[in-house]
């Protein structure tokens, strides 16, 4: 009788929970001014309804009480499936376990423990792989201490694994705070850095490591925030997938922007602006974590009341051969406005395979809200700079994993034959393609969702995208190739250049006025074939002179990349190598000091 009553009560509670969730689901996307807590609940409600067998969906189901038996069955299956493992598994399993430990039966506790003995937690070969692997290993070794090597997949004891994972995490945090990430500002791989830091923050027993994880989360989100515009991750990117490059709001980083910054107002699972490449429910760990984004970072991410220049230095991932430095510096320049963000890396090979050197991304209700050019480069030698396998077969190998690597039509590429020079809203991109390069053309992405694309007799191509106006000039002839989502601008000259300047309705008024102004603009490139030099006078009167392989002159003065700081802009300041990041918003500052592992907050009362 008693058990019947208990059963009835439980059923009643479940019904109430489900009803609440349904109501939450119904309270759909319309609430654009939602709070973080509302978005957390909404995310969990939607994620808990998903059928996918992964640790995030399982966590959502267990935390909301939706389909609990199904979630337990999924988790059980994931511990038994010997075909899976690797670094995603290593951190995902311990995350799901630690967030839901109290809800699991004893048999699952044992199976999960056994997974760290029997599954092969391969470490991988990239920065994001290592963050996931070592975070997973750190927390697993902490969870099951005092066990010998026979109980672990790699033959090392709990103490050895913990020590190794702790040492690497400390190394990575210090390296990132002083020299930046190698896989920096990646709309795709952002999801592989944040969730491990969330579980490290929530479950590291060592208060110092816990604090470091909190500071790394602040750091990662601040890094994103300064280049964030309405859900888009602006600026150049170390690694990105083509689909996310040509349709920025479908990138994984947008899902995190929605949860933590409250932008864009379209929910991540909506396909209003295109379908995401992956389901990417990693944000579920954000919805259950105790980490809270400092308000100052959200403000930095969303206040676009005044345009600003923001520069950064990052590092190239480990160069193992054909280079003089192990981690050369990467220089980023980003110009942010309320309508668009124009950003660039200096060019060259800064990351293999998936580099995105420059683009202008504009605020739009339509998909494919970006425009950029590239040289589609590939070579075994480029890959051999970073990977130890035989360079003559590497291109084909990479092609198997990143299906477009050798594709002449690919939309992500690093090229040793591309260099940029940016000043605020103006950008020069020069190409000097070697005669032996596999692909001998330059491509540009012009989305079909532009309101207008006009080829002017002056040689300029003018584009209108909402309130954003784009002036695009090239030195040589070109052709247009129509594709599903875009017009592909293609130049077949190995030596060529592009000048881009962006304006807005607020700057110029009508689009015709913008066009008129640029019809008079001076682009001096007549001797480009012999001296690879162009001189351009921007609308603000600043003269940009750029020689491929030579100097970048601004009103005759050379740009000195060596003086670049780790972060330099109105919101973020960090001296190169200092390990101290200062965030500023109005009269409020937040300082992350990675030397002292300290966070300092100040509010100046005026």
């Amino acid at each position: 009788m008693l058990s019947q009553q208990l059963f009835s009560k439980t059923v009643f509670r479940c019904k109430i929970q489900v009803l609440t969730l349904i109501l939450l689901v119904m309270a759909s996307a319309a609430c654009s001014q939602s709070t973080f807590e509302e978005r957390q609940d909404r995310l969990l409600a939607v994620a808990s309804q998903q059928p996918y067998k992964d640790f995030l969906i399982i966590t959502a189901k267990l935390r909301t009480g939706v389909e609990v038996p199904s979630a337990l069955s999924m988790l059980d299956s994931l511990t038994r499936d010997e075909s899976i493992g690797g670094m995603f598994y290593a951190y995902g399993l311990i995350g799901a376990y630690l967030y839901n430990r109290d809800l699991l039966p004893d048999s699952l506790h044992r199976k999960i423990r056994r997974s760290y003995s029997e599954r092969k937690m391969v470490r991988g070969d990239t920065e994001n792989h290592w963050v996931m692997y070592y975070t997973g290993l750190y927390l697993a070794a902490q969870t099951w201490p005092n066990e010998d090597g026979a109980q672990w997949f790699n033959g090392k004891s709990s103490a050895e694994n913990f020590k190794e994972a702790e040492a690497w995490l400390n190394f990575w945090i210090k390296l990132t705070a002083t020299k930046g990430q190698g896989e920096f500002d990646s709309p795709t791989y952002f999801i592989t850095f944040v969730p491990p830091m969330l579980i490290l923050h929530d479950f590291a027993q060592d208060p110092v490591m816990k604090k470091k994880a909190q500071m790394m989360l602040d750091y990662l989100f601040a890094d994103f925030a300064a280049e964030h515009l309405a859900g888009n991750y602006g600026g150049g990117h170390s690694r990105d997938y083509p689909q996310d490059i040509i349709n920025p709001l479908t990138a994984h980083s947008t899902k995190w922007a929605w949860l933590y910054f409250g932008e864009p107002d379209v929910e991540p699972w909506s396909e209003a602006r295109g379908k995401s490449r992956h389901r990417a429910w990693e944000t579920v760990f954000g919805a259950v974590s105790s980490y809270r984004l400092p308000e100052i970072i959200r403000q930095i991410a969303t206040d676009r009341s005044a345009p600003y220049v923001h520069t950064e230095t990052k590092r190239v991932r480990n160069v193992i051969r054909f280079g003089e430095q192990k981690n050369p510096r990467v220089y980023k320049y980003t110009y942010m406005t309320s309508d668009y963000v124009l950003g660039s890396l200096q060019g060259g090979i800064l990351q293999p395979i998936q580099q995105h050197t420059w683009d202008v991304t504009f605020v739009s209700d339509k998909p494919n809200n970006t425009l950029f050019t590239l040289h589609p480069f590939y070579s075994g030698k480029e890959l051999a700079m970073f990977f130890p396998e035989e360079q003559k077969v590497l291109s084909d190998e990479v092609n198997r994993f990143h299906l477009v690597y050798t594709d002449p039509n690919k939309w992500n590429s690093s090229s040793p034959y591309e260099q940029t020079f940016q000043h605020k809203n103006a950008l020069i991109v020069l190409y000097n393609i070697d005669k032996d390069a596999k692909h001998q053309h330059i491509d540009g992405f012009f989305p079909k969702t532009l309101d207008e694309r006009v080829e002017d007799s002056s040689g300029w191509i003018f584009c209108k995208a909402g309130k954003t106006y784009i002036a695009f000039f090239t030195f040589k002839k070109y052709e247009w190739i129509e594709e599903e989502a875009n017009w592909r601008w293609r130049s077949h000259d190995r030596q060529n250049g592009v000048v881009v300047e962006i304006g807005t309705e607020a700057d110029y008024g009508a689009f015709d006025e913008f066009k008129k102004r640029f019809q008079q603009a001076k682009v001096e490139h007549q001797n480009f074939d012999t001296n690879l030099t162009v001189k351009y006078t921007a609308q603000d009167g600043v003269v940009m002179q750029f020689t491929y392989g030579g100097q970048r002159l601004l009103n005759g003065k050379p740009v000195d990349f060596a003086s670049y700081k780790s972060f330099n802009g109105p919101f973020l300041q960090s001296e190169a190598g200092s390990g101290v990041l200062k965030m500023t918003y109005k009269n409020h500052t937040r300082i992350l000091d990675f030397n002292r592992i300290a966070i300092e907050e100040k509010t100046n009362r005026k």
Partner: protein
Amino acid sequence: MKSHTDQKLTLKNLLVIGDTEMELAQKFIKKLFPRGFLIRVEYLMLLFIFASPLTARQSGKICVAVLFNSTKSNVASGDRYVGVFVREKDEAEWQSISNTNLFAFGISFSQHGATQRYYIAGGNGLHRSSDGGKSWKILTSWQTMEVLSVASDPVDSTVIYVATPYGIFKSTDDGTSWTEKMRGFKTWYTDEVIIDRRDRRTLYAATEEDLYRSTDGAENWSPLKVGAPGMRTIVQHPANFNIFLIGTEDHDVRVTLDNGKSWKAGVGMPATAIYAIHASSDGKEIYAGGFRSGVWRSEDMGQTWQQIWTAPEIEAIYSLLVDPADANHVMVGTNGKGIYESYDKGKTWKQAGLDGAHVKQIAFYPF
């Protein structure tokens, strides 16, 4: 790619008298005659030949290191052909003896006393098994990444060297800790490290820029000025220790007959990448293979070469092995096409399993 086999206390090696073998023999003598009975080592060799207390211990097992299945992802588990596999010489089926999901670049064996060890140079570190492959432990930590080659000291079991994209690392405490050993190197990428058959403190390192030699246990290195960049593999001739053959990235085989004083290009071979070189146990026949090269053979210490086999479906040959007990039996490991073998010195070939795998090294079990 790594055709070097470790020094080991076997009759086959003891027959080839060099400094290392002298040391091994002296140790053996000390064990036999702890009070310091004097005997010329050469006589001891003869004693071994006739009494054969250590009979030739090459088992019939063939061991291969497999990098990964070319059709699967590199971030998840579940690849069919990843790790280290063994088979009996006359069997067809390969059995995995390593952890799965291990990118295996090379394998090595050592025997010190009764302890037999297997080493795997792996993408996530140096793996070692002391129980015949039943269990494995990763010896290296995060600082020693992507181990491409391993060489263990033939006398002192606590001394181990590894080649990595970040240089040479040495352990003198049985793999517990590792120290970078790059004094004299201009660049850091190192594909392979081997120990000289005559002197265990002399090592050779194949770097991107040149072949380097150390005569003091990796403390200091000097370039040998091979004259072509991109060292891919090093082989010391099994019968004449002054002869070294180097496979290079774009300049085929380079050979020295005078212990590295002078180098010349192998004649007859087009300029290409050579990833694998291996010699028959008597050194009379040397085989080489690489990128779109087919298999080449030299019968004059690597000075001239003839192509003996080519197959359009095979893009690259990563590894080679001449059966030490049967010079007619030659095996090649390919990129993505598994193993091929010939029982008539390379006239005819057949696929021998692991199709789909990149086979980075083939070796015989030494015990």
